[in-house]
C-alpha cells in the first residue's frame, strides 16, 4: 500500500431525508491498484461511488482528488477524468456508434475523441466485434449493452474508473474478458468497482467490505484466509 492517494475520502458521511446512508468513511485509493467494494444490498456501496464521482457531496468530511478537495474542482472536467459506469447501462436509441461517441459530444471531452482504430480495438477487447457499431441498441442484449458502456468509458482515457457491478449482466466467459480488460487498464488507471462476483472480487488488489454504510474491513487479496472469509460472507 505505497504511494500517494489519488482519491481520498476523509471522515465522509452522507445522509438524505434524515437517513444516514454512509458514515465515517476513510479510504485511500492509489493509482495502479484495483479496489473491489463489496457488501450486502443497500449497504451504501453505490453511494460511495457517487460521492467519489462528485454526483453528490458528503454531508460531513471531504473527498479529494490528487490532494484537491472536489469542492474546489471543475466538476465536468473532474468527472471525465474519473467517470462512473452505472449498473444499468443507459444507452440512447440509435446505433452502437452513436452511443460510443456520446461522451465525446460533451464540451469537456471534445479533445479526447478516439480514432476509429482505438474504438475497434477497445470493442474487441471487451468482446464486441465492429458490427456492433452499426447495430441498433434495441437489438443489444443486457450484457452487450454493459460492454458497450464499458468501451465508451474506457475510451475517455480516464485517470480512474468507477464501475458499479460491471459484470452483473454477463456470462462467465464475457466476465473473464472484462476482468482481463480491467487488469490491463489497472496498470495505468485506478480501478474501483462494486461487485458481487467472486471472480471480480478475486481480481482486485484490495477488497473493501461495506456494512450498514460503514467500512467494516479492508483486505489485501494476498491475505488468502481473510479473502476466503469475505467471499463466504458476501
Amino acid at each position, binding site marked *: 500500500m505505497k504511494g500517494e492517494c489519488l482519491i481520498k475520502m476523509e471522515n465522509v458521511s452522507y445522509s438524505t431525508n434524515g437517513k444516514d446512508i454512509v458514515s465515517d468513511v476513510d479510504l485511500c485509493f492509489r493509482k495502479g491498484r484495483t479496489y473491489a467494494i463489496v457488501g450486502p444490498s443497500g449497504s451504501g456501496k453505490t453511494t460511495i461511488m457517487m460521492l467519489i464521482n462528485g454526483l453528490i457531496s458528503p454531508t460531513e468530511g471531504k473527498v479529494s482528488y490528487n490532494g484537491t478537495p472536489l*469542492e474546489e474542482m471543475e466538476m*465536468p472536467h473532474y*468527472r471525465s477524468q474519473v*467517470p462512473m459506469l452505472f449498473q444499468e447501462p443507459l444507452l440512447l436509441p440509435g446505433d452502437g456508434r452513436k452511443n460510443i461517441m456520446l*461522451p465525446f459530444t*460533451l464540451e469537456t471531452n471534445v479533445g479526447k475523441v478516439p480514432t476509429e482504430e482505438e474504438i475497434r480495438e477497445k470493442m474487441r477487447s471487451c468482446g464486441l466485434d465492429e458490427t456492433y457499431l452499426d447495430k441498433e441498441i434495441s437489438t443489444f442484449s443486457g450484457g452487450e449493452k454493459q460492454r458497450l458502456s464499458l468501451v465508451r468509458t474506457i475510451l*475517455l482515457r480516464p485517470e480512474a474508473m*468507477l464501475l458499479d457491478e460491471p459484470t452483473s449482466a454477463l456470462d462467465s466467459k464475457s466476465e473473464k474478458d472484462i476482468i482481463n480488460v480491467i487488469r490491463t487498464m489497472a496498470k495505468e488507471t485506478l480501478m474501483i468497482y462494486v461487485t458481487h462476483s467472486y471472480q471480480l472480487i478475486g481480481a482486485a488488489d484490495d477488497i473493501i467490505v461495506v456494512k450498514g454504510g460503514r467500512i467494516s474491513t479492508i483486505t489485501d487479496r494476498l491475505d488468502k484466509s481473510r479473502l476466503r472469509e469475505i467471499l463466504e460472507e458476501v
Partner: protein
Amino acid sequence: MTSQIVDISLLRMMASYGFVLVVLALIRLKRIGLGRDLVTAVIRMTVQLIVMAFILEMIFDMSLWYVVIAMEMAIFILASRIVLSRVKAKTRNLSRNILISLLLGAGSIMAFFIVIIVGPDPLYDPRYVIPLGGMIIGNSMNACAIAFERFHSLMKKDRKLILTLLSLGATSTEATSSQFKEALKAAFLPILITMTATGMVILPGMMTGQILSGTSPLTAVKYQIAIMMGITSSNALVAYLILYLENGEFFNNKHQFLLSAD
C-alpha cells in the same frame, strides 16, 4: 365596409345563457357530475367580464400611461398565479421563475408589437395595449405551463440518463439538453397547430371581433397575421425562459442533479 356593429340588447344577451341550460340538461341526463362546476364557471366568467368591462371603460376614459402600465403589471402577476395554480409539479422558485419568464418573454414581444408594428398614438393607448397585451400574455401562459410540466416530468423519468451523462463529464445544461428540447417542442406544438388551421378551420377571435365592429377584412387579416407572429414568438421565448430558469432549479453549481438522492 365600415358599418356600425349591431349592439345586443341585455335581454338578447341573457338568452345566450339558454345554451348553458342545454348543457346542464345533458350533464344531468348522463350524470357526469359537472353541473356545479359549470354553473360556477359561468357565474365567475360573467362577473369577471362585467368587472373588466367597467375597468376598461374607466381606463380608456383616463388614458394615462401609468394606469395602463399598472394594469399590465396586474395582468402579468395574475397570469403567473394562474400558471402556478395550473401546474401540478412545484419547484422552489417556480412562482418567481414564471413571473420572470412572462415579464421578459411576453413583455418584450408586447413592447415590440405595440411600438414597432402597431405604433398607436399615444404608444400607451389602452385600446391597443390592453387587448393586444392580453392576447400575447394569455397564449404565453399556456406555453409556459406546458413547457414546465413536460420538463418536470421528463427530469423525473430520465433521472438515470441525466446521472449517466453527468458522470461522464456533462455540464448540467448538456445533461438535460434532450429534455429541454422535448419540452420546448411540446410548448410550441399548440401554436403550430393553430397557425396551420387559422384562416381555414379557425377564424380567430381578434379578426372576428374586428370584422364585427366594421373593420375591413383586409385590415383585420393584417392585424391577425401580426398578432399570430407576436404570439408565436412570445410562446417560444416564454417557454425557453421558463425552461432555462427551471433547469437551474434541478442542479447546484457543482453540476449535481438535485433529484439524484431521491
